[in-house]
Structure formats: structure tokens, C-alpha cells
């Protein structure tokens, strides 16, 4: 090194010590981590504690004990509900996996006609409310007022009824067709990203098409199928709306409907509700843990960044059967229910038949026109509240998601690993379980009975979806793009505002729309946390279904569905085809 005799009396300027610790970055990330930790951990802790508190016979005092748990396994109704939940979830998983895998295969790997046109419709049920689906199917296929049954009676002269969805199998049917897209998304992504040369090389060894499919293709997509199946199991175990509409009134209870009756209503017992939530949460949490830690890491990464053109199988004449099958799915899952709801909503009273002379728009006036004196406040409140909750909730959740993703992927270390874990936890617990936790945590605070508690519940439960959306993009964006902004003299916040966020913009917007959709149709959290005045859209539907008539319910359902469908269109515009892969 060149040695220069330079004077050693340089005036060295030293940076401020405190400013080194309290940077924008450390403050923002600490605050965000703190919020997430509190929001996620507190309700679950409260749930655990409350589940061990036993209410005495008078209903005033509590003492520690295991009586809540023994009640679950000894009490006739609750045990039945527990078994029903397991049965429904298992069967629903089988149904949704069958539909999901077959539809994904048809769309990704066969020459089924017009499959590009049908593909978006296969995903529509993902965006719609299963509760509304249950209402629609009740009006289609309940024994007395079911439209299909009435048509069957008048066309074929059948006595009694052809279909009945007001039972466990109805629940399985509706949940199954509504959760099919969850499997479909996992499997089609895996099939599309598979390197076709993997199959080609099997064919060159002399294996036939059938042999190749069974010995190469299927094993490669198995992790995706398992992931999808587990998500369906967990989601259907936590589903409240469908069993509430098709099961409860006819004596078929599930854990979620039982938790609901213990959380609200005359014989409310939060402690027993907490214990039931614990049981449900442990089951779903375990399954999600298996999916996240055991199955997902084993998914064969066939991604090489290259766009593959997967092998397409010529089905010959069978391609029309495949087409009919796919069309049939879209018909029963999307077209038929929506059509039915529209028809029902236009009648003053629903008797299972279309009565052209009676058609009216009065139901829409009652549920939509909040200024009208005969409007129903539960419905109009619900619309207003849901839009407030969905837009504010999605914005806060995405902001949190950006900061959290930044922490996880840019500031590596112990804290980021804890955060990564905390972001998976809410996914493991059904909305109704988390809501129960939020309820017992905050019931004695001022935020109870306000929109804030709903907002808190929504964000806690669903911000991981936004976070995943952001994370996947952040992984693809080089860290050096951020670093070069810092080197150019920009602070952390300026970098976030001018570089990071603009680069993540498509992901942020897609995530925002996704959360907006989820919040707009949310039922199982809202039903636990709402009070008079803080109804949401889905609670409005619930209210009308319970205390008013089917046409009014259908009218609000149609309104909700229209907004959700609009969101689907927007979502497809801003997000790519693959953006949904959970």
C-alpha cells in the first residue's frame, strides 16, 4: 500500500449513537412485529385459558377444571357435532379432491375444447360465499320449496321430491363444490410447471401413456394434491355458513354451529365455546402444520423459470365428455345457484315455483335502499359496514404485509424466523375459532361491540394471505434494488415508497383485492363478533335468512355476489393466472 506521510490530525466527525438504534427501519419493523405478535398470540392464549374455566350451575362464577372438555366428549349433542364435523370434512375433501384434480388435469393436459374459456369460471366459486351457495342450493333442492324438485314434480309427475340438500350430504355437496378450486389451484399450478421432458423421458423408455401418467405424472403432483386436500379439510371443518343453513335447522349440528350457539344466544357459555374452539383449532392447526412443514417442502420444484408447454393428451371423442363434465361443474357451482337466487329474489314470497305475474323488485328496495323507510337495517348496515371493513381492513393488512414481508426477506435473523412462524399460525385456525379467541380477549374492553373488534379479527385471521402474495414477489425482486436506493442516499421510508412498493405494486393490488373479497363475504368471524349496529354483509344475509324470508335473503345474496364477481374481473385484470396459488 502506498505510504504517504500525511498529517494525522484529521477532525473525525462521529455519528450520533441513538440515531443508529432508532432508525426508521427498526422502529417500523419493531412496531409491526409487536402488533402481529399481540394480535396473533393474545387471542390464542385467551382461548387456552378460558377453555379451562368452568362455569358453575348458577352461571355466575367460574373455577379451574377440565369439565368443558369432558362435556364435549360426553355430552350427546356436542359429541355428535364433533363426529359430524369429521365426517363432513372428510367426505367434502374426497369430493373436492376428485373434482379439483380431474378438472385441473382436463384443463392443463388435455385437448378439451374451449378450455381457455372455461378455466376462469372454474375459479369463480373461490371468490363467492359458500353460505350464499348453501342458500341457493336450499332454494334449488330442498324437499318442499326446491325449484328442481318442483320442476321434477311438474315435468315428470314425481311424487315427493327428487333431491334433498337439507342434511349432511347436502352440506358435503355444497362445501365440496365450493372448495373444489382450492385443490384445483394447487394441482393445476403443479401440472403447468412440470417439465414435460420428465414425462417424455418416461415415454422413451417404453412406458405407455397410462403407465407414464401413473408412475411419473401422478407422483410428481401428489404433494400438490395432498396440500390442496388438507386445505379443503381444514377449511370445511371451519366452515360455518353451510352447516348453519343446511344442517342446524334439521338437527345436524357441527362444531362450528355449536360454537356459535355457545358464543351468542340465551345459553351462551364462552368457556365451553372456547373449549370447543380449542378442539377444532388443534385439529386444523395440526393439519396445517403437516401441510406447511412436511408436504409443502416436499413439493417437487419443477420450476425453472422457463415457460413450459406441457404435453397435451388427445382425448379423441372423449374430449366432448371432458368438456361436458367441466361445463357441468361450472353449471352446478356457479350458474345454477346464481340463477336460482335471482329468480327467488324477484318473488315477494317463494313457494318453489316461478310465478311470472308476481315478479317484483321490492326485495331489492328493502335490502339496498337504506334511505327508504321500509328498508331492513341489518341488511343496509351490513352493506355499509362491510365496505368500510373490507376497504380499511385490506389496506391495513396489506401495509402490515409489506412491512412483515420486508422483515422476513430482507432483515434476516432470529426475529424474522419468529415472524415467519407467526404468519402461518392464523392460517391454521378457522375464523370462528380465532373469533372466539378475540371475543374472550376483548369482551371487557371498549372495542367490543364496535367495528374495531371485527377489523382486528379480520386482519389477524387473513393478513397472512396478503403477506404470502407480497412475499412471493419480494423473493423474485433482487435485494440489490433496495440497497442501491439506500446507497443513492434515500432513507428506508423513501426507499420503501419510491422503489420497493412500486416494484411490488401488482402483488400489493392483487393481495388487496383478494382480501377485499374475503372480507366482503366473511361470515364466521363476523357472526361471533357482531352486535346490533355492526352487522356485516354476510351477517345481514344470515339475519334475513333467519328472521325474514327467502326472497329477501336471495336479494341481498345476489347483491353480494354481483360485487364479488366484479372483484373477480378486477382481480384477473391485475393479477396473472398463477397469482392465486395459496
Amino acid at each position, binding site marked *: 500500500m*502506498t505510504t*504517504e506521510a500525511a*498529517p494525522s490530525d*484529521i477532525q*473525525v466527525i462521529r455519528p450520533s449513537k441513538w440515531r*443508529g438504534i432508532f432508525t426508521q427501519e427498526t422502529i417500523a419493523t419493531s412496531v409491526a412485529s409487536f402488533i402481529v405478535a399481540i394480535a396473533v398470540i393474545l387471542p390464542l392464549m385467551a382461548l387456552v385459558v378460558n377453555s379451562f374455566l368452568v362455569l358453575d350451575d348458577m352461571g355466575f362464577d367460574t373455577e379451574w377444571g377440565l369439565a368443558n372438555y369432558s362435556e364435549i366428549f360426553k355430552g350427546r349433542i356436542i359429541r355428535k357435532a364433533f363426529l359430524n364435523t369429521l365426517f363432513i370434512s372428510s367426505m367434502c375433501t374426497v369430493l373436492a379432491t376428485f373434482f379439483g384434480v380431474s378438472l385441473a388435469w382436463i384443463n392443463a393436459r388435455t385437448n378439451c375444447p374451449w378450455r381457455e374459456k372455461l378455466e376462469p369460471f372454474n375459479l369463480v366459486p373461490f371468490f363467492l360465499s359458500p353460505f350464499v351457495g348453501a342458500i341457493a342450493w336450499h332454494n334449488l333442492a330442498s324437499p318442499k320449496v326446491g325449484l328442481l324438485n318442483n320442476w321434477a314434480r311438474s315435468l315428470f309427475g314425481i311424487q315427493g321430491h327428487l333431491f334433498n340438500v337439507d342434511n349432511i350430504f347436502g352440506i358435503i355437496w355444497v362445501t365440496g363444490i365450493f372448495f373444489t378450486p382450492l385443490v384445483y389451484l394447487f394441482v393445476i399450478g403443479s401440472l403447468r410447471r412440470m417439465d414435460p421432458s420428465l414425462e417424455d423421458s418416461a415415454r422413451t423408455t417404453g412406458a405407455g401413456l397410462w403407465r407414464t401418467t401413473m408412475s411419473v405424472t401422478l407422483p410428481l403432483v401428489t404433494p400438490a394434491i395432498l396440500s390442496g386436500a388438507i386445505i379443503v379439510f381444514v377449511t370445511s371443518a371451519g366452515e360455518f355458513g353451510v352447516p348453519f343453513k343446511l344442517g342446524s335447522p334439521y338437527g345436524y349440528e357441527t362444531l362450528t354451529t355449536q360454537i356459535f350457539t355457545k358464543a351468542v344466544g340465551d345459553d351462551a357459555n364462552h368457556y365451553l365455546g372456547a373449549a370447543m374452539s380449542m378442539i377444532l383449532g388443534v385439529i386444523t392447526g395440526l393439519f396445517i402444520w403437516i401441510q406447511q412443514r412436511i408436504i409443502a417442502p416436499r413439493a417437487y420444484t419443477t420450476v425453472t423459470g422457463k415457460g413450459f408447454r406441457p404435453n397435451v393428451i388427445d382425448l379423441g371423442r372423449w374430449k366432448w365428455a371432458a368438456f361436458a363434465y367441466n361445463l357441468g361443474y361450472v353449471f352446478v357451482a356457479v350458474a345454477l345457484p346464481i340463477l336460482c337466487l335471482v329468480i327467488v329474489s324477484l318473488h315477494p314470497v317463494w313457494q318453489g315455483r316461478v310465478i311470472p305475474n308476481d315478479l317484483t323488485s321490492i326485495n331489492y328496495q328493502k335490502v339496498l335502499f337504506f334511505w327508504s323507510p321500509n328498508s331492513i337495517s341489518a341488511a343496509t348496515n351490513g352493506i355499509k359496514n362491510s365496505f368500510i371493513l373490507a376497504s380499511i381492513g385490506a389496506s391495513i393488512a396489506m401495509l402490515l404485509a409489506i412491512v412483515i414481508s420486508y422483515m422476513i426477506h430482507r432483515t434476516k435473523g432470529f426475529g424474522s424466523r419468529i415472524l415467519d412462524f407467526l404468519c402461518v399460525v392464523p392460517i391454521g385456525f378457522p375464523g370462528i375459532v380465532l373469533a372466539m379467541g378475540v371475543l374472550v380477549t376483548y369482551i371487557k374492553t371498549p372495542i367490543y361491540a364496535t367495528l374495531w373488534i371485527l377489523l382486528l379479527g379480520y386482519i389477524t385471521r387473513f393478513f397472512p394471505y396478503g403477506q404470502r402474495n407480497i412475499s412471493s414477489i419480494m423473493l423474485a425482486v433482487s435485494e*440489490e434494488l433496495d440497497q*442501491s436506493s439506500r446507497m443513492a*442516499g434515500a432513507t428506508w421510508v423513501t426507499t420503501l415508497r419510491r422503489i420497493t412498493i412500486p416494484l411490488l405494486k401488482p402483488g400489493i393490488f392483487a393481495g388487496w383485492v383478494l382480501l377485499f373479497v374475503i372480507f366482503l363475504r366473511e361470515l364466521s368471524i363476523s357472526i361471533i363478533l357482531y352486535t346490533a349496529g355492526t352487522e356485516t354483509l354476510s351477517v345481514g344475509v344470515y339475519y334475513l335468512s333467519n328472521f325474514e324470508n327467502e326472497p329477501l335473503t336471495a336479494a341481498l345474496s345476489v347483491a353480494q355476489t354481483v360485487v364479488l364477481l366484479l372483484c373477480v374481473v378486477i382481480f384477473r385484470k391485475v393479477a396473472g393466472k398463477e397469482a392465486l396459488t395459496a
Partner: protein
Amino acid sequence: MNAETANGSYLEVANLVKYFGDDRAVDGISFGVPQGKFLTLLGPSGCGKTTTLMCIAGLHKPDAGDIRIGSNAVASVSRGEFMPPEKRDIGMVFQSYAIWPHMTVSQNVAYPLEIRKLDRSEIDDRVREAIRLVGLEDMAEKGATQLSGGQQQRAALARAIVSHPCLLLFDEPLSNLDLKLRERMRVELKRIQHEVGITSIYVTHDQAEALVMSDDIIVMSKGRIEQTGGPHAIYARPTNRYVSNFIGIANLLEGRVTRAGGDRGEIEVAQGESRLLAPCLLAEGLAEGDAAVLSVRPENIEAVKSKPSGPAVEGEVVQTVFLGNWLDCRVRWGEFEWKVQAHPREGLRTGDKVYVCLDPDHTLAVRP
């Protein structure tokens, strides 16, 4: 590196340590760079050179040591001081160029000036000047994604120099370019750095890059400094086996110093019965009797058919590769094979018995 040399330095790094987990990526290194000079940190991947650069940039926090840029103490672990990267007034060119894809070239280049809240007209002038300097005038309004690798490289350089920072950092900026472009950009980069006169630190694993561009080179390995010096000194006078081996091609043979006086001496190497006593230049600190390594470059060896007068050993040509202007030969001597660059005129062939003789002025005894 001692204190006096550091005092003449514009940038000074002292006892820098950085851990990744339990791994000491940078293991207590110290160096300085005089104002306006171009210093290269050279070493294989994982030697700690990029980590050192990141610590200077402020993108990594050191675990021990001090860093001073000009009159600013930017990091001092013992005092708990740390200046965030954006306050350090450094221009940096990244390995991936990190050109922001959502901006045009001139927006990219203008960014550091906008952050410094300069007048629009001054920003425009300086952006135009920087873009002209790197030769991207035609691409100024193009989106960053439309640029080729070499153009992105130039844009990144323009962005780094536009704010006239006090220090320029380069993190392997040429490693993603193809060979032809890389060779051209070396000269170009050096010209621009010379023109703007900003003190620069350049990280690379490519020795040719280091030799062409640098005023000074620091050869690193395993988080430590192996040798510091100008390109010529590093190539001609490596002081240890690692540097000899890493820079260029060298014949390395373990032996012992048999005579030492000043910087000249003699080293003994042996293969079985055959021994060679080679007069040589001694690396600093070697004394008589010390274990040392004989280091001599293939171009400084002669293989001749008739026995020469000076010290030589007899061997057999086992391989010849004709490369036009020279003949690449392997000459077996016991277990060892000498790498020799012979003149094609010599007409050596496989199987020939030859004498290998070394030039005392270019034969080195280096530390093991």
C-alpha cells in the same frame, strides 16, 4: 498495515470483523485507500471481499472494528456508532446492476439527485453529463428493461457517479457480462473512474480485472488479507504460496532457504536424489533454514536440450501444447511436473530429455 500508512488514507478500515452465524466472514482486516485511488479486493468467492464492501457501504453492520470515510467515522463497534448507508455519500454499482425496472434510464440516474433535493435544471444538467460520460445518450429515455447487460452496467455506473459521491464501490460489476464486453468495460470503467477522480473500491474474483484496473490490490482469503500491493508487485513478487498460486500460473515446490542476505538468497528443492539449489529473491521475513516455497512462473523458465552453465535439473518432456506464439510444455522431474512456456523455435517434443533452468531474478522463495 500500520498506523502511519492509515493516516494518509481517505478511507480507513481498522480491525474489521463480521460474523455470519458462527462463521467469521471477515476476520479482523485493516487497510486504507489514499484519495482518488482505485483499490481492488481480490479473492475467491467466500473470502470476505463482498462482506467487507458491504460493511463499508453500511449495508452490513460490522461486529468489530472501525471504518472511516474522509473525516466521517461511519462505523465504530467499540463506540456503538453506526451511520446508515444513505448518510455515507457513497456511489455503488451492484453485481446485478440493480437498475430499477419501473423507471427510465434518466429517471434512474436522476434519483440520487432528487433525493438530495437539487433544482430540476441542475438535475437535468448533471444527469445528461453522467449519461454522456458512460455513453448512453441514445438510451436515456428507454425503460430499464429494454437495456442489454452492458447498457444496464453503464446506467448503474452513471447513477453511482451522478451525485459526485466521496467514494465509489463496485461489487463484481463485470461478472455477468460476456468475455468480450468484460474486457472492453474494464478499460472503460478505469477511464471513467480516472476522469471523475473518485476514490474507488472494486471487488472481484477475476485477477485479470484486478491487474488491469487497480492502483492497489488486496488479495484476500478466508476473511484475511494475504498480500497488499500494486498490480505489478502482486504478480511479480507474491510473498506467499497462496498469492503465487491465485495470481497467474506458477510452479510451486516446497523447499528450504539455504542462504539469505538482504532480499536475495538461495532455496533448495529436491525430488528423490536430484536436488536443485536455486538462487532467488526472498520474500520478506524469510531467513536461512526456514521452510519456504519455490515459486517461478512458466514464462521465466527455460527448457534447453544442452546442459547449461547455471543451476539446472534434468527432466523429460511429457506433454506439449502448441499455442501459436509459445509452446506449453510439461517437464517431469521426479514426481514433479514443471510448467514451462517454451519458444516454438526450440522444437521440443514429447520424450525429449531437457534441462530446466531458472532465471534468478524471477525465481522467488515465498512463505508457505
